[in-house]
């Protein structure tokens, strides 16, 4: 456990030593700030009408959740760039030997690297979340909805990272890892589009269940369903197990 933390700290530090991390943070922040502000001005424009409505929808529905929705899509593009180098680069520089020769298990190595990426993504989500939280200066927001959306995006992004770590363990070329990760994420994102057109309702159900987006959407509506949380946890667990097995295979006879 302690080893996992050491590796995680190193991973996080290494990320901030490269300009890539800073650039990604800046670009994501900028784009989301733009979307946030345009959403907010929309809200201000319609505020009189909204006030007149019976069951008024508030600022959280109109400004906050759509922003996290956009964030989820942007992060799908960005996470592969962050995860691509975690294992592949160490393979390429042959520095993996350092970890393999130290008294650490493969699971600790993978977990450390994964948590390093997740910690970075949490920093990013934290910075994004400052914007909706700033609305609290002006008035109340729907805390329940906000927290459930936040949980949704954290789980979603953590799943992205698990796929990314796995693909990074497959190759020595960071770009290959990034493209592979992106392909899988996009496929899992849109898998239910086809589902909607299949006549067989069982198949539709399965494809919809597999879609990463569906589970996020319900959390973003404020519906906390433990099956959605379980989906993400299983997803993360599977890909991390695959990564551990992949690293083990480096050592073993095949």
């Amino acid at each position, binding site marked *: 456990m302690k*080893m996992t933390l050491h590796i995680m700290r190193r991973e996080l530090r290494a990320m901030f030593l490269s300009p890539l991390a800073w650039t990604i943070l800046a670009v994501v922040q900028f784009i989301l700030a733009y979307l946030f502000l345009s959403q907010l001005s929309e809200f201000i424009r319609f505020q009189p009408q909204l006030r007149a409505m019976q069951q008024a929808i508030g600022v959280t529905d109109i400004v906050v959740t759509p922003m996290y929705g956009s964030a989820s899509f942007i992060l799908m593009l960005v996470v592969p760039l962050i995860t691509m180098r975690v294992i592949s680069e160490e393979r390429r520089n042959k520095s993996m*030997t*350092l970890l393999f020769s130290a008294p650490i298990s493969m699971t600790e190595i993978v977990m450390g690297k994964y948590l390093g990426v997740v910690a970075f993504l949490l920093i990013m989500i934290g910075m994004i979340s400052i914007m909706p939280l700033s609305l609290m200066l002006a008035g109340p927001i729907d805390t329940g909805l906000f927290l459930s959306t936040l949980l949704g995006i954290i789980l979603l992004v953590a799943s992205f990272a698990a796929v990314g770590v796995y693909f990074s363990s497959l190759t020595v070329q960071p770009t290959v890892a990034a493209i592979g990760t992106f392909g899988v994420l996009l496929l899992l994102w849109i898998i239910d589009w086809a589902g909607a057109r299949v006549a067989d309702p069982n198949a539709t159900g399965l494809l919809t269940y597999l879609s990463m987006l569906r589970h996020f959407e319900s959390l973003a509506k404020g519906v906390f369903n433990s099956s959605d949380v379980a989906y993400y946890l299983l997803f993360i667990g599977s890909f991390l197990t695959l990564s551990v097995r992949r690293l083990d295979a480096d050592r073993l006879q095949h």
Partner: protein
Amino acid sequence: MSKDTLVQVEHISRYYGPNAAVSQVSFELQRGEVLGFLGPNGAGKSTAMQMITGNLAPSAGRVRICGIDLLDQPRAAKAEIGYLPEQPPLYRDFTVDEYLIFCARINGIARNKIKAAVQRAKERCGLTEVSRRLINNLSKGFQQRVGIAQAIIHSPAVVVLDEPTVGLDPIQIREIRRLIRELGNDHGVILSTHILPEVQMTCDHVQIINKGKLVFSDRIENLNQRMQSVSLLLGLRQPPESSELGAIDGVKSVEILEDRHFRIFHDSENSPAEGIVEQAVKNGWGLFELSPERKTLEQIFVDITSNETTVEEDAA
């Protein structure tokens, strides 16, 4: 097994497809011993090193470090190993200090002892002055030293160094060799190289590996004996007939080389150098060169492999 047996390797093999990179290699390493692993390129040295350090699982056989099986209890066994692979495993965007602190941590050094361990490793490898520099900006020699510092930071019982002097300048090579000797006093060291003098200077015990097989394993003195010259290189300004040279006591045969040089073959115990000089002075041959020829590693390989002496497992 005595208490000071640090490494026990029993019949390890590793196959890549049908090719055996290493086959049936066995040996032991005692405390206070420097073991040289010699072999030409591609002989299987690095593969053997990787198996000893747990980076590669052997296809067959077992490795025990301080009596702990490397496959059954990798964590306990690896804590006793320090490994410098062919290419030092460095994080190039870290400073030397940051890197060594990380190495100390993942090797399980207690928090309050990390500082002292890093300091000691830096002193031993002569890195104190570059502590705060980025590894990427250091010269090859310094990077190599950082690699060694990493391997000894947790004072492991066994230090495994894979070609540690490659790419260093002569002064650095000397320093590193001195360091290896020093390490050999209280650790066990396994050193792989293809440079023969390096082994002669630093090792107590030599093993030669060729095509994945251990072909020679003995103490260094015995290797030196094998290397003793059996020929002299002779240069004469006014050379006589080669039959005259052949008549000198102890000369077995004479080979005429270009540019007034001769190669004189003789018995290993009985060098005719003295006799040749005597004759040369007496007859005015104009002696300008006389030197014993040392065997190269290649010749020793030819010798050893042609003598079909595949070493039995426990020659150590």
